[in-house]
């Protein structure tokens, strides 16, 4: 490593005209989906505390090593120049700059999942896969394995900005984003629109993606065409429902389409049970998807006599009518 790199704090900040600094997201950049306003307000109030670190090559072009957001904030405040530390010369390796920026960032904030992907993609040309997995992934708070690495790389390399923004803003969970990698970008964006509009929970997102991909296959339709469904539109635009209600209605609707026999059996079973007068303290449930051969009876009671009373009432009901809902009535 170059000598100055080890002694960065000893570099005296110099005033640099901001218009000379290239602020496109360069090879060291690991900022995405951020809100610049708090930083702008802080600079307005107390000025720039930490000077950005820049690199000037032998041709005089200046790029950002650390302080990408600070430069952006200063520019949006129409500041002319700012005090920056500068590393000069062509013999500064890009990987050295990258690592400086990584450690600078890790010291002061938590990177979002898109930013973690940016870091990993930028490390790939310089660092062996094994070292990335063993050293840098734990540093980023990620599980140390190749499958996770591959997922982050794919998200960074293949996802559109809209999808990345949804991830960075926490609207789309990373795991669910991975599920979206297998479909084309137009389909992806139609699913993400729905997720953002209805503010679906992580679990609902997973179900939406899973059911939509399956149903578009089963029905031989494209995903955008499938999501253009009248019932989905009606749920989405129903002003009587709030977002959580819409989310639940959407998933219920899709599940019924995806699992018609299971849904029918569940409805039948519910009907059968509701015909019995069980009261509030007695419940009968089926196993998930009826896979177990057994049903569950739950009785809440205070003491022996109250249990006896409940069971006697229960026995007076037409419990012989209970059966697997797909079987014919006896």
């Amino acid at each position, binding site marked *: 490593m170059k000598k100055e790199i080890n002694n960065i704090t000893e570099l005296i900040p110099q005033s640099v005209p901001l218009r000379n600094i290239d602020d496109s997201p360069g090879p060291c950049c690991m900022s995405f989906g951020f809100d610049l306003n708090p930083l702008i307000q802080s600079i307005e109030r107390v000025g720039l505390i930490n000077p950005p670190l820049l690199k000037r090559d032998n041709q005089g072009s200046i790029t950002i090593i650390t302080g990408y957001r600070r430069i952006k904030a200063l520019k949006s405040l129409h500041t002319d120049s700012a005090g920056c530390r500068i590393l000069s010369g062509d013999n500064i390796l890009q990987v050295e700059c990258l690592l400086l920026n990584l450690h600078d960032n890790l010291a002061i904030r938590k990177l979002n999942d898109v930013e973690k992907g940016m870091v990993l993609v930028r490390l*790939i040309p310089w660092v*062996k*896969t*094994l070292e*990335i997995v063993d050293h840098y992934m734990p540093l980023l708070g990620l599980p140390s394995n*190749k*499958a996770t*690495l*591959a997922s982050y*790389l*794919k998200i960074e390399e293949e996802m559109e900005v809209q999808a990345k923004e949804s991830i960075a803003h926490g609207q789309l969970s990373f795991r669910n984003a991975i*599920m979206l990698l*297998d479909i084309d970008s137009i389909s992806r964006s139609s699913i993400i629109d729905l997720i953002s509009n209805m503010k679906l929970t992580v679990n609902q997102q997973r179900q939406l993606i899973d059911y939509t*991909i*399956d149903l578009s*296959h*089963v029905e031989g339709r494209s995903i955008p065409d499938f999501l253009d469904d009248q019932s989905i539109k009606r749920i989405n635009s129903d002003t009587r429902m709030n977002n959580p209600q819409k989310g639940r209605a959407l998933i219920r609707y899709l599940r019924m389409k*995806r*699992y*018609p*026999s*299971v849904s029918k*059996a569940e409805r039948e079973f519910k009907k059968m049970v509701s015909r019995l007068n069980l009261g509030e303290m007695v419940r009968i449930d089926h196993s*998930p*998807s*009826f*896979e*177990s*051969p057994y049903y569950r009876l739950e009785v809440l009671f205070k003491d022996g006599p109250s249990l006896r009373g409940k069971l006697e009432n229960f026995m007076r009901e037409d419990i012989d009518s209970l059966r*697997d809902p*797909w079987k014919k009535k006896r």
Partner: protein
Amino acid sequence: MSTKIDKIILDKGVQEYKSTKSILLQLRDIPVRTEKDDGSEEAPCVSDEMKMDMGKNTMHLVSYQGEFLKPCPGTKEYICCGYQILNVGTNCPLDCSYCILQAYFNRPNLRVHVNLEEQLGQVFEAIDSEPDKIFRVGTGEFTDSLALDPITRWSEMILKGFSKRKNAVLELKTKTANTAGLLGSKYRDRIIVSWSLNSPFISRREEHGAASLTRRLECARECQSEGFTIGFHFDPLIQHRDWMDEYRKTVDLMDRYIEPEGIIWMSLGSFRFMPALKPIIRRRHPETSVLDGEFVLGLDGKMRYFKPIRMELYAFLKELLHQWHPDLGLYLCMESNEVWQESMGWRPETSEGLRNYLDERVRNFFG
């Protein structure tokens, strides 16, 4: 089925095995790479999980350090037939869209266990140590039993040992027409050659690289007339458009080619899979219809058809097959007593009950 092997990898230390030499001789025009001690650094951006081809064109000769004979990993939630797997290799040159081996991405390539011949002694020792137990052994769980046989000559290696034993049978399960090695051998006793069958629709669309149903049945007929006991497996049964008519076509075809009295057993199993397999199938076989059905989480953590759908599939096939011949040794693979009773009209009660039923078939066929 012709294999398209274009690369051979030799693990450290496998050169000396007889199998290695014979395979290298067979594939003498194919480039060979020897694994180095340090393992070469792989392309950085590609994880094992993302590899699409599973190394189906690469034959990897390895010395397998695990146990060669192992019980099939059943689960206590469903009734298991108590099969034993002879682990001759993993992965398969065929490419069925529903194949569970696709989830084993951490083990790509056609891995051939070249120390098999040297380890067979131990396998037979284990079998001989329990003379009262019947070992129903198969090689077709982690690969197709015969797909690589023209190259690996597995059948040549193992038939004799099984043929000589009174408490074991060997089942070679395949979707290929690679029976030349078997037919050329002199061993018949206690050897079962079986074919996995499906509806013509599924076979055509989903069993890539497999022999056509007719070809499979022609081979089965030939094996039967050459003195082999045969078996069939309708596994995985898949619900699809016109599935009843389609499965009926297969049974009609069986009737044209096969003497049902010579069938030792036929299993029925509906499609089931670990949840992690689904995205892999979608990625590798975007046109597939095997995922279209209503799959729910089973008690063993695998996805399987909603119970009444499974019952309907089995009951239909059972009826159809029963009409063809009443004594085919039909059994269900990994099902509950409830499903057995509803679809087959009887139930084995426990895994041991099913084992006894199949062992009895072995005794009836081979003494």
